[in-house]
């Protein structure tokens, strides 16, 4: 028994939208980061599902790369959040708004 590809796409789309919602509403930098991770994972679901569907491994391998890059991104992001905290005493992303217009 197989599940139709459209369900995977719907699942990933839902996940993507949840991530997007998090990005737009969360003010905590870590939550922002997690939401972005959700979006990336939505893409991973797509990639793996389509790899299965198309019968080639390209998507799966690419999903691995995406995960690795997501990890690297988190590493850099955490670093930036650390200095953010050191400078602003907060991890609220809306606090630093000195530069505008």
């Amino acid at each position: 028994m197989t599940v139709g590809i459209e369900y995977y796409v719907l699942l990933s789309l839902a996940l993507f939208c949840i991530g997007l919602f998090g990005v737009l509403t969360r003010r905590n930098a870590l939550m922002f980061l997690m939401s972005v991770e959700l979006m990336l994972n939505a893409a991973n679901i797509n990639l793996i599902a389509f790899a299965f569907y198309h019968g080639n491994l390209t998507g799966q391998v690419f999903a691995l790369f995406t995960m690795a890059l997501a990890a690297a991104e988190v590493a850099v992001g955490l670093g930036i959040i650390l200095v953010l905290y050191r400078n602003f005493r907060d991890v609220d992303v809306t606090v630093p708004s000195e530069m505008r217009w």
Partner: protein
Amino acid sequence: MIDAFTLPEWAALAPPLLLALTALVLFAYDSINPRSTNRPVLAGVAVVGALASLVTAVWFTLAGTGADGPDAGYDLWFVVGDSVTGTGAIDLFGGQLVVDQMALFFMIVVAVVTALVAVASYDYMAGHAYQAEYYSLLLLAATGMSTMAAANSLVTIFIALELASLPSYALVAILKDNRGSVEAGLKYFLIGALSSAIFVYGISLVYGATGHLQLEAIAEMIATGEADAYSGLLGLGIVMLIGGFAFKTASVPFHFWAPEAYEGAPAPIAAFLSSASKAAGFVILFRVFTTAFPLETTTAVIGLDWTIAFIILAIVTMTVGNFAAATQQNVKRMLAYSSVGHAGYALIGLAALTVDGGELVLGAAMMHLLVYGFMNTGAFLFVGLAEYWGVGRTFDAYNGLAARAPVACAALAVFMFSLAGIPPFGGFWSKYFLFTGALEAASANSALLLVAAALVVNSALSLYYYSRLVKAVWINDADPSLDRDFGGTPTGLYAAILFAAVMTVVLLPAFGPVADLAIDAASAVLVS
């Protein structure tokens, strides 16, 4: 030609490989000798690496590597593969990477900007604690950008793009105790993470529609009609890809990070991002849309000519960038917005493509990015010089700088007028070609008349704020109550600024060959 020394084909990747190697050397140096502040050695290694990359890229270009046609290259001492015979683009690793004229062209741009930035950083970053980290991050980012020029598959594109982005985030925020720098880094990073998520999702959709990630394979699937069933997925995927590229090139609506990141970042990094990073963003944009989504077949599948997307983006980007720049009081921020505006100009290169032509306008966009690499880097480095002297950030603070630094201010005038597209400088020609290219394509699609009109209006507006800066430094008198304490004359910054200025001027007489090269490169990717 017989006596040429032939290198294996993978050696065509020497420009990015040299950059990567230099980054690793710097890392190794810092591991052995942690927290070294031996600036001459570190900056020297970085500059040498960037120059080596530049020299190899120029060399390959001259030798005809990746070019087509039997008389593509000159007889040089060593060549890659049998490229002298003009066998066309070199495919590497099963088509994951490709080295052709366009790749080499942008490798040159990236390497030049990297070298300039590394030279300028010698003075600008003096006294900063993380010297080795700074330079190795710079070179890693440059590696990513250089690889982007050669990336020929959505996998390599994404990896290269992230390799360019991640060090950039860190570089923007590298002034750890400077709130502006940290704020800039945070905003850049958050928008970047969001954009790359959208981008990856776009990739997954394109993969879903075609089952491939390699660009030529995607094009083939589209051409053979096997993607017809997934036109919705493909269309959405393409728009999401555009989003990812728009982030990298600082195009509206993904440009929001740019003004802040450029304003808050150290000036050399702002120069680096706004020139090299933008150019690298454009090269993959050009490659993806010319190689993977050929206009004719893609239109048949998704029912929409994708140039429309770029027409909209080009107009909006130009307008937002230039209008927002017009009333800035902060020089660096003005340059940041102008950089957004210039992304709009370069987008014309894709907006004005037509089914049976467009190499002129695509070539013009490439030329514009090359010229921009010099003039914009120079302008930001001038801001770096001003920051080095601590003269303040606003236009008013720049008043009368020419009395103190006439040479640098003359260079600044060159940059500004070239950015505005005033005839005697390099910026004029590329803009002129973009304009004529847009008009030519207007016969096929009258919306391009609008683009051409927007180009003219925005250029006129840009002259206003560029000349404002020139007026400030040359004509206005410094506030006499201000007792400025200038430091010495920073040799590195000066050298970089002057070199950029000379190149901006020299590119005018040299424009013939540059234009030929760019148009050759453009027609090569359009044909394939």
